[in-house]
């Protein structure tokens, strides 16, 4: 059982009490049940959860309590009563009354509970089962009729409810109310017929619904993806780290006979407490999808054909050797893999043309990131902050565990949240955030900040020239800390590894000769390229002009790039490193299959700059990490990288240490957008659950994605006669969506970036669109 930060006060007043004859001193405010845990005394419980408010509903944790020599006339719920000095507590171990009370409650819980443990998902890891063993009687005295319900009920596409198993502890409903702020489930009816229910018009569409399954102390809530798939005692569990976003949640990955069957939130009080989001929990089927690459491929007569590793390595080496080349890594790499790519670029390809940003990116952002690399703004800073300002960042959609922490702090102490955003999103509502609309730079300059403030800026800031500069300016003026929260899990690690044209590992500026000399000697390399590398869109331009001949491309979705890359990829030699066939594959000349996250070890660096290392979950010797393949390719090109795989790459990066010299110059605002035409500005961000490629093959999860809608202001709706549906036309295509009139500025239209019926990539690359009523 973990202690939450709330329970360990900073200035700790200690309370001394006696439990079962043992004296113990615990911080003031500690609940009896938690104080007993510190002595190793386990009081049985169901409704109690250390991260939820006490409720005292199940009555399983009754103990005898005496204060100042006066005994309570009846046993007390140890999960609701804080300790007091001189308190004497007798648990089931020393009080026959407490023991009988607990046995009585356990017997009552079981009278209406089915004896279906042999087919229940929870059987084997079930608190009810375990505590029935410790606190129950061998044979039931109940000979009557059990309460039954038709089973199960889908309370969402991914959460199933078996009502007859439910012990009505209300952990799930309290979680949804207190933690996620999505009170879409509640208890209905009365007495033994009380049950968890949903409002039929608003299903349980919470991004955090999976946590209710994990904290359910019985098998009442089960996940559609895992139901009836396995027994807990057949699973091998490995601590792991989530690959889906920059929050960096600790996970537990459960495998049976070489197949990942489920993932659970791991415990890490400093990062994700005991929670994770549904994407992190359920989106893992992509690694076993049918388009998984298993062998190297080379293009022969226009077709990709399977080949041997030596052939593929030789072919790729020939394409890269002596040719001006560049590297696009994408944002999903571990820090070790990113390190391998940048070392490959600099020492093998002899270029700084490397960029991890497969998204809107700018020169200004690179300079901004040069200030961020090697620094840390952490969850602890959020906890200490009085004011958090969100800039180009929707935490619930883009980094959901940051959202949970913000919400917890908003509810538990006086954190206020402001957001520079076009409208009040569902997430902002749950944070009670002040929304500052209009020009983002002007909005930011108007925000009250001080040294106890934190600015969390998202990667979408790159879309607004000058915004990153304004963030740094605001921070400089006020002393507020800045946290950069990219959307993808690998971006911060790639930044630290130096997978960027202006930065070497550890934030060393490429432009700094001493940094280059340092690194050249560490790498045993004669010289390192001195010219600042191209950004990702410059790389694409150069390739389409023929200035760059070859491209090494890792996990990149072409349509995520801010410019159309198809012509460039068509023209260049493309060496692709991929888990599965992707949009790059059709342009690739050589394809190397690489390991998915579960098949390799490594480290993600989360948005805080916190290293999140994980071991390999699956022992599949046929899968190679990117770093391993790059080292083979480098060897093939007679310029070995000096490491053979992930572990040694990580060691080398670590040995380089932090950079204490001057940073790259502060950013300057780039040119304003030149997009013209149309009648509205398109604004957009990605939903947590959308058409992202790592969510493929998981229909239950997809079922809880938000339905796509467009948002426009009432004024805009009136101006263009739009009522229920909107037609948005871009240079390349059209999107038609239901429209929701929203308090926002005129002549803007917001749509989700990559959801069903709403993929803005189909509109083209311009931010200007033409809107009108859809017929």
């Amino acid at each position, binding site marked *: 059982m973990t202690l939450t930060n709330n329970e360990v006060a900073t200035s700790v007043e200690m309370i001394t009490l006696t439990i079962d004859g043992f004296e113990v001193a615990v911080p003031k405010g500690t609940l009896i049940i938690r104080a007993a845990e510190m002595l190793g005394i386990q009081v049985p419980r169901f409704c109690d959860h250390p991260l939820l408010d006490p409720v005292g509903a199940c009555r399983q944790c009754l103990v005898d309590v005496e204060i100042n020599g006066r005994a309570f006339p009846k046993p007390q719920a140890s999960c609701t009563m804080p300790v007091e000095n001189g308190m004497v507590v007798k648990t089931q171990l020393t009080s026959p009354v407490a023991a009988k009370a607990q046995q009585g409650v356990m017997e009552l819980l079981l009278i209406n509970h089915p004896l279906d443990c042999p087919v229940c998902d929870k059987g084997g890891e079930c608190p009810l089962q375990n505590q029935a063993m410790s606190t129950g009687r061998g044979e039931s005295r109940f000979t009557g009729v059990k309460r039954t319900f038709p089973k199960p009920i889908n309370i969402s596409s991914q959460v199933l409810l078996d009502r007859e198993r439910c012990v009505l502890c209300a952990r799930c409903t309290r979680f949804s109310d207190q933690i996620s702020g999505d009170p879409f489930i509640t208890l209905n009816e009365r007495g*033994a017929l009380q049950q968890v229910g949903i409002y039929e018009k608003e299903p349980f569409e919470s991004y955090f619904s999976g946590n209710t399954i994990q904290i359910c102390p019985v098998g009442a809530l089960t996940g559609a993806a895992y139901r009836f798939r396995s027994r807990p005692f057949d699973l091998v569990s490995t601590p792991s780290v989530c690959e889906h976003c920059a929050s960096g949640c600790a996970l537990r990955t459960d495998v049976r006979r070489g197949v990942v069957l489920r993932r659970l939130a791991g415990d890490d009080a400093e990062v994700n407490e005991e929670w994770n989001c549904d994407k992190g929990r359920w989106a893992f089927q992509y690694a076993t999808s049918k388009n998984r690459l298993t062998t190297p491929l080379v293009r022969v007569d226009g077709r990709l054909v399977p080949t041997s590793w030596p052939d593929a390595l030789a072919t790729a080496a020939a394409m890269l050797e002596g040719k001006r080349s560049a590297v696009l890594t994408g944002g999903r790499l571990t820090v070790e893999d990113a390190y391998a790519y940048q070392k490959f670029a600099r020492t093998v390809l002899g270029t700084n043309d490397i960029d991890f940003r497969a998204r809107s990116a700018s020169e200004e952002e690179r300079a901004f990131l040069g200030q961020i690399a090697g620094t840390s703004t952490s969850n602890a800073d959020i906890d200490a902050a009085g004011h958090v300002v969100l800039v180009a960042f929707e935490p619930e959609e883009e980094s959901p565990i940051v959202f949970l922490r913000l919400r917890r702090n908003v509810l538990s102490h006086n954190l206020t949240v402001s957001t520079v955003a076009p409208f009040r999103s569902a997430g902002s509502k749950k944070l009670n955030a002040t929304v500052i609309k209009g020009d983002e730079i002007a909005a930011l300059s108007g925000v009250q900040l001080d040294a106890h403030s934190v600015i969390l800026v998202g990667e979408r800031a790159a879309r607004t020239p000058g915004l990153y500069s304004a963030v740094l300016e605001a921070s400089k003026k006020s002393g507020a800390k800045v946290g950069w929260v990219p959307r993808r899990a690998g971006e911060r690690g790639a930044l630290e590894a130096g997978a960027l044209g202006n930065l070497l590992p550890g934030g060393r500026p490429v432009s700094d000769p001493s940094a280059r000399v340092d690194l050249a000697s560490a790498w045993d390399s004669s010289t390192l390229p001195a010219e600042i590398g191209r950004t990702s869109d410059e790389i694409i331009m150069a390739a389409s002009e023929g200035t760059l001949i070859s491209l090494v491309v890792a996990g990149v979705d072409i349509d995520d790039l801010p410019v159309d890359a198809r012509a460039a990829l068509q023209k260049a030699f493309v060496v692709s490193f991929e888990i599965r066939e992707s949009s790059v594959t059709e342009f690739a000349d050589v394809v190397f299959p690489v390991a998915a996250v579960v098949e390799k070890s490594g480290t993600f660096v989360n948005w805080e700059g916190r290293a999140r290392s994980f071991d390999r979950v699956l022992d599949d010797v046929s899968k190679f990490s990117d770093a391993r393949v790059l080292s083979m390719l480098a060897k093939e090109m007679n310029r070995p990288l000096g490491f053979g795989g992930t572990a040694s790459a990580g060691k080398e990066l670590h040995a380089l240490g932090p950079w204490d010299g001057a940073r790259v110059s502060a950013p300057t605002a780039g040119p304003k957008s030149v997009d013209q035409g149309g009648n509205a500005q398109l604004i957009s961000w990605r939903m947590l659950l959308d058409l992202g490629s790592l969510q493929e093959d998981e229909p239950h999860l997809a079922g809880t994605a938000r339905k796509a809608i467009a948002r426009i202001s009432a004024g805009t709706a009136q101006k263009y006669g739009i009522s229920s549906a909107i037609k948005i036309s871009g240079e390349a295509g059209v999107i038609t969506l239901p429209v929701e009139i929203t308090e926002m500025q005129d002549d803007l239209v917001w749509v989700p970036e990559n959801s069903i019926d709403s993929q803005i990539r189909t509109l083209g690359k311009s931010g200007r669109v033409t809107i009108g009523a859809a017929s």
Partner: protein
Amino acid sequence: MTALMPVLSKHWDEVDSFTMAGYQRNGGYEGLKKALAMEPDAVITAVKDSGLRGRGGAGFPTGMKWSFIPQGDGKPHYLVVNADESEPGTCKDTPLLLANPHSLVEGMIIASYAIRANHAFIYIRGEITHVIRRMQQAVDDAYAAGYLGKNINGQGFDLDLIVHVGAGAYICGEETALLDSLEGFRGQPRLRPPFPAIAGLYACPTVVNNVESIASVPAIFAHGVEWFQSIGTEKSKGFTLYSLSGHVTRPGQYEAPLGITLRELLDMSGGVRAGHTIKFWTPGGSSTPIFTAEHLDVPLDYEGVGAAGSMLGTKALQIFDETTCVVRAVLRWTEFYKHESCGKCTPCREGTWWLVQILKDLENGVGKAEDLEKLLDLCDNILGRSFCALGDGATSPITSSIQYFREEYLAHLSAGKCPFDPVASTLFVGARA
């Protein structure tokens, strides 16, 4: 011989007792004027000194409850009157509000003035539509007469009184569940502490009182503290409504000083129905352990009933004569508790589910002798283990009936069926032929 002492019920036989005119003709709102002339703290002291105790069941001193409200805390204070009378047998507030609603309004104004509340609520049970209408009319009339609203009686005190209609749940008579329900949530009891006096309605200091407690307040000010102290017994001061129902010749409300006995009340009400003798009775509703003929002389005040092993409760005296099967009566009550269990805590929710099944078997004569021990053990696992007092109450009729009528339970088993003719206990028994 104690005599009846109608105060609240004194004018119920007048056709317009429920109107403003009727109430004022008989001295209504005079106590209010006296109270408003006093300092609020002095009003609390007077109620404390009077010895008035809660008439809803627990008997907590009313003035002391008011004094728990922290003053000068800058928060709004609230008075909430619990008119969610729903316990089997309890039927005092409904006729009181029907016939004399202004006594409650007047009492609420005095209480609100004392605790410095500017909003007061009556949480009234939803089924009694006729009472709700009268109550609403009384409130409207009090506004029109200047007793409610801004600057009451020109003395600078403001009070809004809201009649809130519940949806018919026994649990909403539990004060914290009532507050949840009043706030618009599902009625389930809250964790205490914090107690309502510190964090009640909308997390602000709140007094929750029973209808009769508050309705008794105006008389204290109209007639004086000493007058009130002179009524009743040493620790149970004042008059109260005793509700006689069941096998009694003239059932109804009998208002008398606390401490009267059932023997005296039966004398006044024409006794047990003709040709029959008393078998068992409840002193204060179905949640209070039952009594038998041996308890006829127990003084019906808080101490007297407690000393005899039960609780004064709501003074709902349900009389059962020898034609009644105690097992059947207890089963009916237990079915009520099962139906009304809110479901929050395990002992009450699951326990009542099980109790009903065992009692049904016993009543049908298909149980076993050891079921009685199981029943008692089960009650032991519910009593004092449930979240609120309602779970405790569910066990009272069972344990007390087994205490006094174990033989009758066993007779069901040896007969293989209920040895009683259920029709014999009904009012229509004579019409059967």
